[in-house]
């Protein structure tokens, strides 16, 4: 009887220690989807043990696909924070370990080999002490450009850009028209010469996305062209992005500062008034923020 009691006490003690070990000293991890493609996981690290002093780590990693050897830019709260490069297969991985626990806005985008930028992915994250947060499965959509802003009906317009090597690009010109599929080259470059004979006289905004096996990227629709009565080549000018006030190809704190200078003032330059209405107010700032590249 006494022996059985001792044995039970022994089992309870062991069980308690196992539980403590499991809950306190084992990293706790959780994983969930935050969109169709992108998933987030968090791993809480065990607290430091014994007399060894560990520096509390707050880590954040991003991984995904962009364009072969492309620049990957990360903004923190709207300002440039980190840059890395995708490999030749267009895969990228970023690990940030110098952050303090706080709430942050991270923006991530790619710049392809021809200086075209992807749409920007944004994440408002709560970073916690001793927690490694992982954002994976980012699949930047193809970049897109057109060679003409207006094309004479019957002529061809070239739609081109870059994506992952050998990715299958789906191009939609109009929701009522059939889509086109283009296989990207091994360097990710794709192009399509679109016949305009059957198109109506109007403006079209092409939409592209990439498929690799069963994984689809999100969509991109950065360029437009008009089928009309003349042909006009697309030329990049300062006014291509209206919010780029200082014409440096970026929309960032400098452009914000220029707009801020004219906020609620009269006699502002016409170009500053992004909505072309009612002076310089928060509507103009809202438009500028939409095009923000950092």
């Amino acid at each position, binding site marked *: 009887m006494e022996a059985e009691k001792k044995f039970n006490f022994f089992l309870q003690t062991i069980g308690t220690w196992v539980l403590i070990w499991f809950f306190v000293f084992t990293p706790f991890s959780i994983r969930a989807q*935050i969109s169709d493609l992108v998933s987030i996981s968090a791993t809480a690290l065990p607290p430091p043990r014994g007399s060894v002093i560990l520096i509390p780590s707050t880590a954040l990693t991003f991984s995904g696909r962009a364009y072969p050897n492309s620049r990957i830019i990360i903004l923190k709260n709207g300002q440039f924070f980190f840059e890395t490069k995708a490999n030749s297969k267009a895969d990228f991985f970023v690990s940030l370990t110098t952050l303090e626990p706080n*709430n942050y806005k991270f923006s991530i985008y790619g710049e392809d080999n021809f200086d075209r930028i992807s749409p920007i992915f944004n*994440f*408002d*994250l709560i970073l916690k002490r001793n927690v490694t947060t992982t954002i994976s499965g980012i699949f930047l959509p193809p970049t897109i450009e057109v060679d003409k802003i207006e094309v004479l009906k019957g002529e061809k317009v070239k739609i081109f850009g870059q994506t992952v090597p050998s990715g299958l690009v789906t191009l939609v010109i109009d929701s009522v028209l059939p889509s086109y599929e283009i296989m990207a080259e091994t360097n990710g470059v794709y192009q399509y010469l679109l016949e305009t004979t059957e198109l109506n006289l109007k403006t079209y905004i092409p939409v592209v996305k990439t498929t690799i096996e069963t994984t689809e990227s999100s969509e991109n629709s950065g360029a437009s062209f008009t089928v009309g009565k003349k042909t006009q080549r697309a030329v990049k000018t300062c006014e291509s992005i209206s919010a780029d006030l200082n014409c440096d190809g970026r929309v960032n704190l400098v452009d914000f500062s220029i707009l*801020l200078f004219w906020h609620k003032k009269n006699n502002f330059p016409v170009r500053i008034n992004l909505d072309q209405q009612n002076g310089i107010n928060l509507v103009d700032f809202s438009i500028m923020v939409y095009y923000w590249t950092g």
Partner: protein
Amino acid sequence: MKNIKTILFIFTFFLVSFSVVQAAEMYFVAPKTSYGIGEEMQVAFRISSSNEKINAIEGIVVFPNDLIDFVEVYDNNSMVTAWVEKPSLKNSNQINFSSIIVGGFDGLIDPFQPENKKAGTIANFVFRTKKEGTGSFEIENGAVYLHDGNGTRGKLITVPLSFIVDPTLSSTERKILDDRPPEPFEILIDHSELIFNNQYFAVFQSEDVDSGIAYYKIKEGNNGLWLPVESPYLLRNQKLTSVIKIKAVDKVGNERIMTVSPLTPKDLSYLWYILIALILVLIIHYFIDHRQKNVYNINVYE
């Protein structure tokens, strides 16, 4: 008839519910609702927008200045990217603000509960109670704009917060712990025909995790004075030959100084003038000397 009324009621209920769900919500959060006299009152000013991304917000926070005094505003954990109008006291009972949110905002992701996005803090206000009574914080002229590139105004619900100042309650104080300087930041120098007549200006923005940025100062040149500054700042030395230092100071007094080296080398053309002048002096000296020698020779000859 009764059926029609019931259907109408259900239809209206769903319509109202749907519009409420679609709207962003601006509201206040405080750790308690009753305060003693002379007590510090901390109020978090928050926004949630789970259905639509918003990228610009503005409004006026109104408070009863007969009951409380405005003390301070903290934006250290704000989801705001930059202030168009930093929260500041107007007319002794209003705090006006407007700001942008880069990338838009539809909730904070907690990595352990990513499916439930959380509200973001716009700013934290600190007030001090001064008189017994009941009052409330309210929001006037609140507006949100959608992240759609068109500046479309979004739907917004504002929720006031009531509080009681009771002299029978004891007051508590809090202390900000901040021993870290503001984060390193970039100083951008640029010029544009759209501002300052195409002259060079500096733009900058730092962040401080613990207490927020209080102010900035600038020093142009190594021997200049530290002067209060706001971004954008028209540089005094338009030749860009002097070092530019900008100091960000947080609410506790911790500092971070960032430096931009002279963008153009100092103008050393005056050295050429000195050299030419020296050569001229030497030449004149030579001729005078030579002439004197000639005169001497003539004399000797005579």
